[in-house]
């Protein structure tokens, strides 16, 4: 849940006074957001948690410079995004190649087809790597970070309508990528009025 803006200053003040519990609470509240952003930039890589660790250390050390011009969530979003982008640059991480993927379980598959949720999750994960960064980050914030459209718009500094468009187009792009890979659900063009 997003904190009201006035509470941001109280939390920051407590952490700066050396209150460790306040810092733990702060991390707990924004953990989903920070993780979603790092995953949004890096994808499902081994070093996601290392980068996230650096993000939290940076937040802890940088809280003294938080002036409250932006919301705390926006400030944390920016730190997480920059840290993840820097990690990509530093290590020149290769893009995860798409393997044969399938979003199984369409009605056309018939009752004999086994719907494997874990496999679907992995396939979606790989397809996410092909999305535009903005689409991927918006989707991760929405689903992994469990943030509202308004919160995402605040953090990314975008109009609400643009965020909705990113998320819906991101899903449409995911469908295209997954379909291209396995032809399981061909794009339908044609039709009835």
């Amino acid at each position, binding site marked *: 849940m997003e904190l009201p803006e006035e509470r941001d200053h109280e939390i920051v003040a407590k952490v700066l006074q050396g209150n*460790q519990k306040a810092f733990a609470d702060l991390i707990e509240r924004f953990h989903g957001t920070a993780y979603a952003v790092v995953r949004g930039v890096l994808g499902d890589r081994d070093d996601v948690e290392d980068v996230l660790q650096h993000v939290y250390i940076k937040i802890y050390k940088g809280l003294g410079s938080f002036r409250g011009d932006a919301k705390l969530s926006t400030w944390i979003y920016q730190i997480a995004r920059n840290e993840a982008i820097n990690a990509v640059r530093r290590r020149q991480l290769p893009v995860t190649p798409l393997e044969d993927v399938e979003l199984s379980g369409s009605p056309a598959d018939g009752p004999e087809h086994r719907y494997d949720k874990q496999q679907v999750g992995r396939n979606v994960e790989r397809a996410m790597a092909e999305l535009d960064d903005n689409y991927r980050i918006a989707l991760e914030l929405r689903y992994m970070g469990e943030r509202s459209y308004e919160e995402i718009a605040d953090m990314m500094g975008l109009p609400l309508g643009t965020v909705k468009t990113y998320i819906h187009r991101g899903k449409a792009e995911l469908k295209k990528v997954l379909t291209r890979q396995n032809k399981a659900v061909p794009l339908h063009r044609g039709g009835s009025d």
Partner: protein
Amino acid sequence: MKCETCEKNLPAYASGELDPTQAEELRGHLAGCAACREALAFFEKLEESLTMRRLEVPSARRFVRAVWREVGYSRARVVMDVVASLPFLSSFALIASGILFFLQRQRFVQMFEGDYGFSTWIASIAETFNSLVVDFAGGDTLMLSGIYAGATVIVLLTTTLVTLRFIRH
């Protein structure tokens, strides 16, 4: 509604975010279009899969512990910070005074009963303070009551503040 329009709206429909009027129109199209129903099934499964992604977020606790390690905050240091804090010291002093008073209660009784002059000393301080306040009030009963009430409120607020700070810490 054409299939292109339907497909464009399917992601929002599958997540239950499409405008009711558009949703009704879309349902009308779906009733007569097997291909779009198939596409809807795809988006519904995609929605389910995306919703499950929240389960992949690891616990925040170990990250917090790792930050303490990184910035040199050991468990011992955390304990020392609490011990060195004003609320902790105040509470400790209060408890220690209580214990001391309990253990030495006979001596305290003697102080007030015997020839130590302790009771006289306290009484004289109280009397001096009282006479100063009375002089300041100039015989005004209302002002006198106000001064004592104010002093009581200040003592109570300070005690509450110190206790709350200790609890929060």
